């Protein structure tokens, strides 16, 4: 079934990436569980092998969603940093250090423009941009102590729903690792990322 496989075009010819990554991972997991583990006598080795098998199972679930996860984060961080810059540009009371951070944000948006077709970028570019934006947002959060009360209140109001969205996204992402006592209440990561078959960007 061609639609279940990943297509690549090389020199004008259609090629198929086969087996898919999911199949590699699932094969390794089965081998560890059915062949390696039953033949291990050392308890430490057994424990480690079971964690390797569980990790392979987790990777099988999330491997096809990593690019879109980063892409969604990219859009979310651009949006919140734009909102913060707007908030700060509308106030006369922001201290100089905070203004400096807004300049860094503007500079970053020269590298990864807000309205760029970021989805065409390589994964590493997007991930790198996201890390830079996270650090900038953290700078703003640290600077809250220096904000006048009114500005700080407005900043906190802006951040609260953003914090909530991070919380929900990350908890869905790690749901299958088995640490979450509320796992059943967390959305599946696919449901959280996609709506109507498209990446859930800009929808609330």
């Amino acid at each position, binding site marked *: 079934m061609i639609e279940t496989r990943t297509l690549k075009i090389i020199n004008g010819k259609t090629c198929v990436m086969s087996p898919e990554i999911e199949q590699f991972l699932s094969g390794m997991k089965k081998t560890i569980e059915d062949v390696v583990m039953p033949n291990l006598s050392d*308890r*430490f080795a057994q*424990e*480690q092998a*079971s*964690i*390797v098998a*569980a*990790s392979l199972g*987790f990777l099988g679930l999330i491997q096809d969603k990593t690019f879109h996860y980063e892409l969604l984060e990219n859009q979310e961080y651009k949006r919140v940093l734009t909102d913060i810059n707007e908030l700060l540009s509308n106030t006369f009371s922001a201290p100089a250090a905070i203004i400096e951070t807004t300049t860094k944000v503007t500079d970053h948006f020269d590298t990864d423009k807000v309205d760029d077709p970021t989805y065409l970028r390589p994964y*590493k570019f997007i*991930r*790198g941009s996201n*890390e*830079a934006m*996270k*650090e900038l*947002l*953290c700078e703003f*959060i*640290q600077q*809250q*102590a220096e904000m006048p009360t009114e500005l700080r209140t407005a900043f*906190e109001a802006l*951040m*609260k729903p*953003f*914090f*909530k969205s*991070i*919380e929900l996204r*990350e*908890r869905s*992402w*790690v749901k299958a*690792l*088995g*640490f*979450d*006592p509320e796992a059943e209440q967390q959305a599946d990561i696919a449901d959280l990322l996609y709506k109507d078959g498209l990446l859930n960007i800009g929808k609330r």
Partner: protein
Amino acid sequence: MSNYTPTLAERTQPSQQWIQQVRISYPVERAIDEVFTRKLHNRLRPVEHIMDFSTLQAPLLHFLKEETGQSNIVVENLKRLSGGASKEQFTFDLTWQAESGQRETLCLMIRMDPTESIVETHRLRECQILRAMWGEVPVPEVLWIDPLGEKLGRPALIARFLEGTVQPEQPANSEKMSGVGMYFNPALRAGLGQQFVNILAKIHAVDWRKKDLSTFDTPALNSTQANEWAIGLWERAWNEDTLSAHPIMERAVLWLKENMPVVDEPVIVHGDYRSGNFMYTPTLDINAIFDWELAYLGDYHDDLSWATLELFGGHDEAGDPLASSLMPPSDFLERYERASGNKVNTNTLAYYHIFSYYKIAVIAAATSVRVAYSRRTHLDAMMNFASGLGSVAISELNRLLDKATT
């Protein structure tokens, strides 16, 4: 794997200037500064953790000959212990001449730093607190220590090996990591619960001024200094180790610093008091409290918070949460008040619940991932896997902060 930003690059290959800047940015105890700084210097050496421990046999024999002053000793049956997320642990048999003059064989345990640990702690400090507690509460007897790893290759302490149960048999498909959410049946809960409370009350009552705790800095009475140092430790660990900045962690640490409670009279805080860190005999006597490496002088509410965290505790048969898998949290706190005479302040407890989740997030979302990234631990696969616990802790942290700020 890439160092996507200049800050991430500094964490991986820290410059002397960056190390110095980190050291002055976070107030910590001197011993903590010593081990954290050593960790950063070690990070510059491209060393992966070596799993083969057979090379330990010869230096161990040499070390014990020096320490005992006996040349006719035998070290054999060196084996790795499973468990022990933060330190590598081994057992071995030592045959030597006891004080009585009789030749005897002891089963001993080595607790040794991996190349980089999920919690960088001070072996001499752990040795001092264990010796301070010897005779006060059940702890393993520490016999020898190599605090800097000059003899054994890495910092290590050697203690008597104790027999007992840490984790009872768990229901099918519920194997737990490091005691998180383990299950004790009602008979075990009835037998162990009150002892668990009494021992904690005893720890908090020990007069630390009469003990040799030279590696512990003493916080000022009626001040926030104990909390300043404790926050300094965890914030520094986060900023030295994380592979990714996290807005909720910044939110949390700012709140922790702005809302620090005053500690009137500091006590010995165990720092990791929960199920998984005690052992019991077949007659249901708790015969050892383990993992003292995070002990410090601070507020007893910190231990109460840790022991009542829902993330660590299991549930009873009706699905209700249990403090350290042993009893309902309210029951635990009431029993503690009776056993210790200390009053539980619910606001202070709520503060330490937030702090506790911050600590778990640092360990699971930052330091565990860092040591696996650098391939410097004996449990690389598990350390990556543990990041899931970190995300749950950060989520809980955010929920508690939302409550605290409304």
